[in-house]
């Protein structure tokens, strides 16, 4: 297991390097160049001065040389300066990361247990009453656009009832934990609702299959109660394929987070990358995208490790 983890980690590091170069090249293909964007419309800028500045910033070098420079700086902890926020990239990046980790983490804490519960209940009697209700719920979750649900919830809970704040970010400088939580309720609810629908379907399908397995019948033949049959025997086995589904759902969760962050005015990773690309903020976009890559790689690694932990038949 340790050897496997180490080898997978070193693979991940290699992929990260390759990706960083590819992203560097791709971002270089975006229209304009950083200097032009920053100094655009400045009348006192002569072409000579421009060329001088290019040389100063190393922008006249080849893409390989520029990548090398960026890489060396990045490895020493200098990720550059954000042209959009006029602050070092790290200063923008870390709060955004924290925000997204909070949003996605809380969402997973809600959506995964909810999916397991609803999916298992639905699987007990396929086409029964509970199954139909859960089916409608997951259909709604999959097909209703999350920006629309967000607006609906804001109108109901913030405007009409006034129970919850409409923004995801507290206004006060040092909000209490409770205050922060209150601001997270609606964003997490929307994102969880968006995430839970497909998961419920997978849990249901996986549980229906598992419940017809011979070993479930054996568990019943032993006289075990419905609770241990469902949880300890069926769900425990149905969970194994869920690990992959969960890892694969990360991408859509991230893009869902982008929408939610935008609507609720939260500066998270999704919104940060989106704004960085839209405003041709090279440094920020590059690091943001690279970070998304690393998170995906780690999620896949974690999924494989979880697989091995859940299924004794798999040895790493």
């Amino acid at each position, binding site marked *: 297991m340790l050897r496997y983890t180490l080898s997978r980690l070193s693979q991940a590091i290699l992929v990260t390097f390759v990706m960083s170069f590819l992203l560097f090249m791709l971002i270089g293909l975006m229209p304009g160049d950083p200097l032009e964007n920053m100094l655009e419309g400045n009348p006192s800028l002569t072409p000579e001065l421009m060329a001088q500045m290019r040389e100063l910033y190393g922008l006249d070098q080849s893409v390989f040389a520029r990548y090398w420079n960026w890489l060396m700086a990045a490895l020493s902890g200098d990720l550059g300066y954000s042209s959009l926020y006029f602050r070092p990239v790290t200063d923008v990046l870390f709060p955004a990361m924290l925000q997204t980790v909070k949003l996605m983490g809380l969402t997973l804490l809600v959506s995964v247990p909810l999916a397991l519960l609803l999916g298992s209940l639905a699987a007990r*009697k396929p086409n029964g009453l509970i199954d139909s209700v859960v089916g409608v719920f997951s259909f709604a979750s999959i097909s209703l656009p999350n920006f629309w649900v967000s607006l609906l919830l804001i109108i109901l809970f913030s405007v009409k009832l006034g129970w919850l704040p409409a923004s995801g970010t507290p206004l006060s400088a040092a909000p209490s934990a409770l205050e922060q939580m209150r601001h997270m309720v609606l964003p997490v609810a929307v994102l969880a609702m968006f995430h839970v629908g497909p998961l419920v379907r997978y849990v249901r399908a996986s549980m229906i299959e598992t419940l017809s*397995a*011979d*070993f479930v*019948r*054996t*568990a*019943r*033949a*032993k*006289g*075990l*109660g419905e609770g*241990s049959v469902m949880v*300890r*025997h069926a769900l*425990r*086995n149905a969970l*194994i394929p869920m690990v992959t589904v969960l890892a694969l759902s990360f991408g859509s969760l991230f893009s869902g987070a982008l929408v939610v962050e935008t609507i609720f005015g939260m500066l998270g990773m999704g919104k940060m990358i989106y704004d960085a690309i839209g405003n041709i903020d090279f440094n920020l976009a590059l690091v943001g995208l690279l970070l998304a890559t690393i998170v995906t790689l780690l999620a896949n690694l974690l999924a494989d490790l979880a697989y091995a932990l*859940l*299924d*004794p*038949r798999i040895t790493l």
Partner: protein
Amino acid sequence: MGLNLSIDTAVPASSAFGSGGAAKVQRPGNQALLEVRELTVSFPGEGGSRSNVVSGLNYRIEAGETLGVVGESGCGKTMTSLALMGLVPTAGNVSGQIMFGGRNLADQKDREWRRMRGRDAAMIFQEPMTAMNPVMTVGRQIAEVLIRHEGLSRRDAADRSVGLLEAVGIPSARRRADDYPHQLSGGMRQRAMIAMALACKPRLLVADEPTTALDVTIQAQILDLILELQEDTGMAVQFITHNLAVVSELAHHILVMYAGRGVEYAPAEKLFERPLHPYTRGLIATLPDPDRKVAKLPVIPGGLRSSRSPGCPFAGRCSLASDICRAAIPPMIEVEPGHHVACLKVSQ
């Protein structure tokens, strides 16, 4: 092979036998341990009708005795066993009486079924690989029964599981208890299944083709094991198989099933000496020489007919069939003491 199931542990011997005193089913004297009357299992068929998978089955098993149930694939052997355990899939409907220890199981509540299963009656299955939970250790799966029915602590139950694994002849049982099912061979897995089934010393073991999936030599070992355990514990066994040669070795009575019905039911010697039903005769006539006891049921020409068509279900394949056979379903008749047969030509 140590075959004493009442392994000495910290647990008092009485609970090792799973007899919770009054909790056990009362058994008034002079009654069979199990008596099945007019057992019928039906499933919804096409067009809203119900089709009987088992119809009007009658048989009994005395304490300590073995009943062999034979019949070709799809004749309802498994469904009959599942009915005894209250495990018929929810779509199925069970009617008739299942008298077990003087109580009719057929109108038991779910809670009563759960209290009975694994304690008073236990079942082992054809495919020991799929019948065990792949993500739970073998020891834990056995311990579960003891925790459930005898209220043992996890620790005591784990110790007892090791003892049970030893009792069914699994070497280095302590280590094996921590193995997952896929780490055991097929034969070892079936032994572990038997240990699981017998953990609470049930009075009835329902064995649904427990050797079919195993190698020839392993088959013989498992049969021996069941026989030995039966001698030790005095349990009754309902042994289901395709293989007439196998039941000839261990059954006291034999029930031959065809298309969900009993067609012949008799003491084993009688049935082999003087089979009466044409279907049974066909089975025995085509039995391979006794040295090769592993052969599957021979193929009798034709296939299972729908049990809903009028007349004798076997008529389509019976060489003796005539018009009267197609008129009504022949009833099971006791043609001589203990020997029942459902054939118009025999009972006439």
